[in-house]
């Protein structure tokens, strides 16, 4: 991290440049870290629902609906990370 900071200070000169460079770094870290949790969560959720549908095919419709609901909730967290990325990089 300190190597990045040093490289940034060597190239960026004006305060605006430094802000933009720091914003871009923060943005990349923000979305990268934000995508880990929901990735694991959605993978686990869909795996469990596939297992449930395999154990009891008659309940597949209900399991599928609940699966979509669960995916929506966990994906919202990843998307809030994406919004943070946009805010840091472009605002």
């Amino acid at each position, binding site marked *: 991290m300190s190597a990045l900071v040093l490289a940034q200070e060597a190239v960026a000169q004006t305060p605006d440049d430094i802000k933009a460079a720091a914003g871009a770094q923060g943005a990349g870290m923000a979305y990268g870290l934000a995508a880990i949790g929901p990735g694991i969560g959605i993978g686990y959720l869909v795996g469990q629902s596939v297992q449930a549908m395999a154990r009891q095919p008659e309940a597949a*419709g*209900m399991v599928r*609906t609940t699966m*979509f*609901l669960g*995916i*929506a*909730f966990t*994906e*919202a967290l990843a*998307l*809030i990370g*994406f*919004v943070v990325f*946009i805010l840091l990089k*472009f605002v």
Partner: protein
Amino acid sequence: MIFGLEFPPIENLVEWPNFAGDSWYGFNKIALTYLIATAATAIFFLVAASGKSLVPKGVQNLAESSVKFIEDGIVMETIGPDGIRYIPYLASLFFFILISNLFEVVPGWQMPANARMGGPAFLALLTWAFFIIVGIKHQGPLKYFKGALFPPGVPKALYILVTPIEFISTFLVRPFSLAVRLFANMLAGHILLVTFAVLCATLWALNGLVLALPFSFFMLVALTGFEIMVSFLQAYIFTILAAVYLGGAMHPEH
């Protein structure tokens, strides 16, 4: 600029100039998209309703299957039979969001209207007001808020912890997450499609790197198909979450 590839500034992707009129009340492409989505939904259902055959054909058949999809797939699964009176709202919401999302893949237009926060924010606020009013109407204001903020079955000492969490989660996070989910999905898809399209155009123009063009074009085609699925999925998820919140407001937890 890397290898002569340049990405346009983000304003060009999401800000559209007004056709006429001044800054904030001017009419632009996003407003036109919403107008077309409203008109298309209204005309679709009006034309279908005017056909009165008992065995539906054509447009009437399509509209009846759509309403059946909303009734069986969304309302029955989440609210139950008392939710049938909300099918008009949920069906209009679903088709409005679906059509305004599908403009992302229409060649030449290629802008999902929900990639700007105005539309999703309004729809989320509308749904939020709707489920609060439904809760107040069905259970009375005191009983609704008491049941929502102080859920039964919790040991009394834990209410200090549970009530702020319930308040934030039910009345603040729900509309915010509805709006952000729709907005961020559409914005991310739009940026992805623009990235690969600009890449394809630049690789075509620079003859030196043209060997990479088939890969970029394949990604563009695959992502367009994926975005059609995401448009449908986001409309479905917004509608089913609206139905879940309505069900939660109507039927208190026992």
